[in-house]
């Protein structure tokens, strides 16, 4: 492990995303342990507080890659930019978030650097100077611990598993502007437009509280009671595949092995039986509550708290009770 530790600091609409602080924190711990510098690469950013906002998480130096052509995301354009800088720095380790952008970008960059990539790390350890990575496989039905023997270790971190911790309130990172030259380069793909579902809507994978409804909801309109419960808890609505396939909820709401793998603090499953594919997507939630009229439903095996009963009575009652105590 010779070179510095490099992180990619992801932005959306010109602002650093929280996942960038998670990655910086994880990177700082490794860098400190190895006595290495922590360098953040950021693309086309104009925040004037940049050196402070990343510095406090322990970043020593920021390389701001500049070219107006990078204002909107391009997988190959970003991969080219990062690989050019990475080859100059020659890091021992690259960390990036396994966010939507990270999942798209990291494999392309890895192939360009000709190094293996380890996706979706949930635990990062140093063992005699070697980096050992724990990651889920089979949607979390098992975990493997692996090591990369590539010249650069390249790892993406699952969002929300690593917490962002301030390293030094007063630290400012050194800022270096780096001009990337795209003359003669034709972008292979470009983002034309971003459609936001709802301003400020939190994604399931980043939500702290999720209230999910399954086939027991019986129809799309009944999700109103799920939404009301989610609202009092400041949570997000999810669904089982049965509900999605019935057309009651959009595909992006599906939790499970072929949907989103989520790990909120609280997951409330309403009218969901707990099929193995559903459990694979939500069993790593910290607390699970199940509401189901069938006492034998497998969801009760993973639930910390269960209520056996008709969700159409229990859910509104729960919403009311929560409203009451939140008032106090």
């Amino acid at each position, binding site marked *: 492990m010779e070179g510095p530790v490099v992180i990619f600091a992801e932005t959306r609409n010109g602002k650093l995303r929280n996942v960038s602080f998670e990655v910086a924190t994880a990177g700082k711990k490794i860098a400190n342990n190895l006595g290495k510098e922590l360098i953040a690469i950021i693309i086309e950013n104009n925040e004037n507080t940049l050196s402070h906002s990343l510095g406090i998480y322990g970043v020593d130096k920021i390389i701001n890659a500049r070219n107006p052509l990078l204002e909107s995301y391009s997988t190959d354009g970003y991969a080219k930019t990062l690989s050019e800088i990475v080859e100059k720095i020659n890091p021992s380790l690259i960390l990036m978030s396994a966010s939507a952008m990270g999942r798209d970008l990291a*494999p392309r960059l890895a192939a360009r650097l000709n190094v293996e990539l380890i996706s979706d790390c949930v635990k990062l350890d140093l063992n005699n100077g070697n980096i050992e990575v724990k990651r889920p496989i089979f949607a979390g039905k098992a975990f493997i611990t692996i090591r990369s023997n590539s010249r650069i270790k390249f790892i993406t971190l699952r969002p929300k598993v690593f917490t962002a911790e301030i390293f030094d309130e007063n630290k400012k990172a050194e800022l270096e502007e780096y001009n990337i030259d795209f003359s003669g380069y034709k972008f292979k793909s470009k*983002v034309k*437009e971003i459609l936001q579902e709802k301003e400020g809507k939190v994604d399931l994978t980043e939500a702290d509280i999720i209230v999910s409804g399954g086939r027991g909801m019986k129809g799309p309109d009944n999700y109103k009671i799920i939404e009301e419960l989610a609202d009092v808890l400041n949570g997000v609505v999810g669904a089982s595949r049965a509900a999605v396939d019935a057309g009651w909820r959009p595909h992006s709401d599906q939790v499970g092995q072929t949907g989103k793998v989520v790990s909120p603090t609280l997951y409330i499953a309403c009218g969901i039986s707990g099929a193995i594919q559903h459990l694979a997507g939500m069993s790593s939630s910290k607390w699970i509550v199940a509401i189901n009229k069938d006492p034998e439903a497998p969801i009760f095996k993973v639930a910390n708290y269960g*209520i056996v*009963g008709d969700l159409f009575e229990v859910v509104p009652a729960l919403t009311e009770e929560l409203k009451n105590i939140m008032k106090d």
Partner: protein
Amino acid sequence: MKIAVCIKQVPDTETRVQIDSEKNWIKESNVTFVLNPYDEFAVEEALKIKEKNGGEVILVCLGPERSISAIRTGLAMGADRAIHIKENRILNGLSVAKALAEILKGMNCDLILLGKQAVDDDNMQVGPMLAELMNLPSITVVTKLEIADSKVLAEREIEGGLEIVEAELPAVITAQKGLNEPRYPSLRGIMMAKKKPVEEVELQIPDSEIEILNMEYPEPRPEGKIVGEGPDAVKELVRLLKEEAKII
């Protein structure tokens, strides 16, 4: 249009994972293997594009002998032919992408489709790696695909929204649920699949630079409890959430 679809055979999602004695993969006895669910979306999309524009759909699959059942599923759905790269080792993303690229480089496809993720390793790597190795555009996690005048317009899922991405053909696309409804193979399709050509190839693929050190089960969840029955149990649930779980 010449369309290639990269497919992988994986354990059925119903599988209860059992770790083997060497602790580096799962026990394969009693496991049912299927075509990777996301690859079904990729095959379906290829068939739809072929139905509209004409052309050929070729499956490319790397894996052991048993992978033939997944290849047959894709052929039964309607793909024209397949290439099976025989390989018994478990390889990581880059090695798989290199092998696929070696086969695909000489084929001059207009479009290469993959699943967004194989549901065994959950790597989500092969698509963009393959695209980079072949110097082609990549668009991942696609829920809507339009092809016109050798241009691709795709919708892809990001946190809390969608990105509209543009690229030129040939391109590499990875399929997400929502892209389409995969068809079930018809009886006729299944019969015809048996006669469709499957070319077997062997490549010299170097070992992956990834070492599996250990494999383990997730931490067991604590014993749960039934708080009670019906709306009367709500008060106690809220108390537990407040005092025990300390969430509210």
